[in-house]
């Protein structure tokens, strides 16, 4: 384990810079307000939340059965399913797949699990170039920082920060702070990698047991490009993400509304098997989850759907910045 994190001291540093603190506080409170507005539109909102919690209680109570069912169905669909006990096993599986594929480039969309496993440095040490293709995650990669928020990795940065960073890394105009321009710079620089790469990676928001499917909810669409362009799709997912088919609608209704106040994400893609001529691998990762499941007072945290509503509403998080916690799942994630 790493040394203890002095969150209070880190927060003090973050607060010393009022521009960033005020911006983060406003942005995240704005998301909280959007979440409230979205929830107001759904009369059965609290029942939905309770239902989702009960479904998770059920799937977590029968976790092994559902995982085995998923493995059987996914395998029948032509997916190759791997089991990783911990981060190292996960990273090794990914590396072996890339080596087998004979590629040293991996395009990927955002995944907190690969952050948790510290996969990028593992692969980079072995000569693999990893390209994060989601804007926020790419910004953080270029800046050599972990994500500061689980759904908005670079939300603590201003447009100016990004303009300066891109000018250093991509040679773009440091004075051009327009969001569309910056997104364009990023796209021009990452899109070619989609075409070059022989392997793409995604995380997953849900693993659906009966059809043996994974579901990925995104707004930028890079997960779909990562999954559908290269001839190999690797999906890494934590074992707690398993749900049943009938409950998918419950979670889809909750996820984007809780996260950003949108009714649904721009893309909600279900992957059930490999494309013609391509391969699909799913890595089911434990990395401490089954131990957590056995903890009487903490197993509830595995119900978390990673919407980040807890971070957006938390007055301490909003004033501290996500990086102050020195943890992949920062702040209050999964604490309630």
């Amino acid at each position: 384990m790493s040394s203890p994190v002095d969150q209070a001291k880190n927060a003090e540093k973050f607060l010393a810079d009022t521009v960033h603190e005020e911006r983060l506080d406003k942005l995240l409170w704005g998301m909280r307000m959007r979440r409230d507005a979205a929830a107001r539109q759904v009369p059965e909102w609290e029942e939905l939340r309770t239902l989702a919690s009960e479904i998770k209680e059920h799937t977590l109570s029968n976790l092994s059965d559902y995982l085995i069912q998923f493995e059987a169905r996914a395998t029948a669909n032509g997916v190759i399913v791997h089991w990783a006990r911990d981060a190292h096993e996960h990273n090794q599986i990914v590396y072996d797949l890339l080596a087998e594929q004979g590629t040293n480039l991996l395009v990927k969309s955002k995944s907190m699990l690969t952050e948790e496993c510290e996969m990028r440095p593992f692969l980079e040490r072995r000569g693999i170039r990893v390209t994060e293709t989601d804007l926020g995650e790419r910004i953080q990669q270029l800046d050599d920082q972990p994500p500061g928020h689980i759904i908005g990795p670079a939300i603590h940065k201003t447009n100016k920060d990004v303009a300066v960073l891109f000018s250093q890394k991509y040679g773009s105009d440091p004075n051009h702070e327009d969001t569309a321009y910056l997104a364009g710079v990023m796209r021009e620089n990452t899109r070619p990698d989609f075409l070059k790469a022989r392997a793409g990676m995604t995380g997953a928001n849900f693993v659906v047991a009966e059809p043996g499917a994974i579901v990925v909810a995104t707004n930028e669409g890079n997960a779909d490009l990562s999954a559908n362009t290269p001839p190999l799709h690797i999906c890494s997912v934590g074992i707690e993400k398993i749900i049943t088919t009938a409950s998918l609608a419950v979670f889809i209704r909750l996820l984007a509304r809780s996260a950003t106040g949108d009714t649904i994400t721009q893309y909600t893609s279900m992957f059930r098997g490999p494309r013609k001529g391509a391969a699909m691998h799913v890595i089911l990762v434990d990395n401490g989850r089954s131990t957590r499941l056995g903890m009487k007072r903490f197993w509830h945290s595995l119900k978390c759907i990673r919407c980040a509503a807890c971070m957006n509403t938390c007055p301490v998080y909003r004033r501290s910045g996500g990086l102050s916690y020195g943890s992949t799942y920062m702040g209050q994630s999964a604490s309630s």
Partner: protein
Amino acid sequence: MQVALMVPCYIDMFYPHVGIATLELLERLGANVIYPKEQTCCGQPMANSGCSEEARATEEHCARVFGSFDCVVTPSGSCTHHIRNKFTAAADSPEKQNLVRNTYDLVEFLHDVLRIREFPWATFEHKVALHTSCSAIRGLNMASMSERVHDPVFSKPKALLSGVSGIEFVEFERVDECCGFGGTFAVTEEAVSAEMGYDKLAFMQKASPDCIVSSDMSCLMHLQGCARRQRQDIPFFHLAEVLNGVSL
């Protein structure tokens, strides 16, 4: 009705007039108030810091002092919350069970037990920014929570204060966001705590209140500290003072 008055340690030390206002108010309402002089503290500061073992003697003392009363009233949501919901350091005893069952925050006692809605002796012709503490909202269900968007909106402190003639309430942003005090949090996370306090004050001040009122003096202590450092001259009152007829 016999009532034992528990005056939180920080009120005893820093704001004795709030303890006195609480006593006078309860007596005005016909209560037979007893003030056990050997009382000290409910143990909350230690327990909140994770020092359960260090909280034990204090909690047990509190249970001994107050455990024989049918009704214990304290002008503090956080002390009530601690005793009712987190009083786990003290060994179990009939006194402890009695105390846990019979302790009320002043607002609850007036609103739910005595069901008082009129305070005819009090006039307060001022615009009030009303702050309700996290302990009171989240721990004691004293007011609705803003994120529970389909729940009915209510506030027991506001319902009581509305019984004071002339009072007006200003509306401000992020009404139920924490003031940043959080007990020992203000010490362990000084920078974040202070920033939250400054922000809270700023949201209130934008609505141009004449004063800031709360049923938790500890929140007000924090906000007052923030206001002083910013050289803001705004008065702070505990709800008991306003209900007892204080003038600005």
